[in-house]
């Protein structure tokens, strides 16, 4: 059932450019692919490992800037830029993660939030590298062996391919022995230690993998927008990733993906003005926290349990 709906959704999304030629619809689909992937990366860090990380926003921005600067300033290709995005984000994640994961989870949240805010300030103030508030406009279309991804439908294949790749990798990771260890760390860290497993390398690895996946997503998204400026680090993105994970149910792989596809198209439907959109988002977050603490995934799980109980009688 799950597999069937996953396969049909994959095929349906893959065939999207054949159904519509509207650049707007395909643009929304690109956002859906990238946001879902970034949210799934946050789910690995927060949902599975239990580390609420706001640093994802920083990694997103650094990935975007690294890719854009590789192409525009250092004359590399888009693909090389993505590799740099992943490498730089991994390195930074390890550097910040090492002191941060050893503290308590309260401190972890604050450190990652401070990091995200810092990246925004640096993007704005380090004018000689990032060109400050003016940003870097006119990012060119990616080019693979002479083939140019110059239209929106063609660019969609990059976003779609990356989403499949990253989500596949995350699926493999989450269902493996490592994924189960991460869940164990979230649920009972002293027990994990008692089993002779040191939680620090696992937490660091999850944090770094989440950072790299988010960074590459940011790089692709920057080239979709064709411009990068400090607004790329707007808290709106972090908010989106977090709402997707919360409404989908932290720690539920398919719940988060379903929520990602829905929540990234919903704001487009509800779009009156930029200010209202954020207010609606805030209210949705509040409602989700109070009404559905477990998210969609938690709600489905409860329902399944209830059905199993009813079957017993």
């Amino acid at each position, binding site marked *: 059932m799950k597999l069937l709906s996953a396969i049909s959704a994959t095929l349906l999304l893959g065939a999207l450019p054949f159904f519509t030629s509207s650049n707007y619809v395909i643009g929304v689909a690109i956002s859906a692919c990238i946001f879902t992937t970034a949210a799934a990366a946050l789910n690995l860090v*927060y949902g599975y490992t239990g580390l*609420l990380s706001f640093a994802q926003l920083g990694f997103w921005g650094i990935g975007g800037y690294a890719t854009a600067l590789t192409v525009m300033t250092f004359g590399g290709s888009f693909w090389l830029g993505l590799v740099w995005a992943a490498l730089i984000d991994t390195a930074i994640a390890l550097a*910040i993660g*090492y*002191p*941060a994961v*050893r*503290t308590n*989870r*309260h*401190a972890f*949240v*604050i*450190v990652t*939030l*401070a*990091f995200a*805010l*810092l990246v925004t*300030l*640096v993007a704005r*103030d*380090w004018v000689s590298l990032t060109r400050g508030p003016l940003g870097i406009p006119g990012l060119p279309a990616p080019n693979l062996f002479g083939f140019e991804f110059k239209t929106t439908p063609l660019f969609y294949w990059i976003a779609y391919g990356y989403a499949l790749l990253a989500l596949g990798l995350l699926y493999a990771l989450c269902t493996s022995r490592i994924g189960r260890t991460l869940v164990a760390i979230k649920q009972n860290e002293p027990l994990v230690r008692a089993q002779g497993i040191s939680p620090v390398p696992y937490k660091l690895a999850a944090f770094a993998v989440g950072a790299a996946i988010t960074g590459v997503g940011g790089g692709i998204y920057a080239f979709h927008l064709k411009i990068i400026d400090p607004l790329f680090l707007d*808290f709106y993105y972090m*908010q989106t990733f*977090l709402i997707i994970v*919360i409404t989908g149910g*932290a720690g539920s792989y398919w719940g988060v993906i379903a929520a990602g596809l829905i929540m990234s198209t919903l704001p487009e439907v509800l779009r009156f003005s930029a*200010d*209202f959109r*954020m*207010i609606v*988002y*805030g*209210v949705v*977050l*509040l409602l989700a*926290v*109070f009404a559905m*603490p477990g998210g969609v995934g938690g709600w489905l799980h409860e329902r399944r349990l209830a059905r199993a109980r009813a079957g017993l009688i």
Partner: protein
Amino acid sequence: MEVDATYLAQLTANGIILGLLYALIAVGLALIFGVLEIINFAHGELLMIGAYAMTFMLPAVGLLYWPSLAVATAVVALCGLLMYELFLSRLRPGEFERSILVTLALSIIILHVVQYAFSASPRIVDTQYGFDGWTIGAIRVTWTRIVGSGVALVAFVFLYVVLKHTRFGRAMRAVAQNREAALMVGVEPKVVARNAVALAAALCGMAGAALAPIQLVSPIMGQALIFKAFALIIIGGLGNVPGVIAAAVGLGLMESWVGGFFEIVWQETAVFVVMIAVLLLRPDGLFKQGTMRVG
């Protein structure tokens, strides 16, 4: 590099004043964390409400500083009370992630409602003190800064007396140190939590009102300042009130010096680097972590 003594003295004076105001913001965060174990992400927005209340009160009372400050403080204390009664009181202890999401959602809603209602453009605030300053030798400090840091100092003394010598404050410390034991001797955690949030909000509103004439008032002013307040409560040790004040003055000084001699990007980065270094060397903060202490 040639260092001019006057310039250094000027930077030092500015740094101390800035640090005292940072401390006023961060103390509220530490108080809320100590009593409720919640990190209030909407704290920056409370600050911003205080600054806006000051902005709108000043013309109404003919630019008089003190009545406006009192009203702004009261308004924000009331906002804190509402925030607790409507949202925070519904959270059970130990629901750390939910508390973050709730305060984060409130922060986003307040920020964008204010932006929608009063536009995002920054405002300059004039008071009875105008933009005149006090000159000692070659250093010149504006009156609004001097009064602002005076307000902060008085607030710290007040906070010390409240926490140390009143039932109201002792109950807060009791809950912060041992929730169960406090419950056993008849301290009601909900009432104490409500008081703590209102007190923290009042301090934060006062900081916002004092900052309004010193810097530009805009909806995003809270976001920029709260980043430093978060770093401060990490450096000072979570829930440690005097530690936070000491860290804040140190940070204000450092920021002023770094900003005076290097490019502006280093000013922001330095704060973060210090925080990471402190975490690496002393994961519990610079000052011994413990339950809420005042002396």
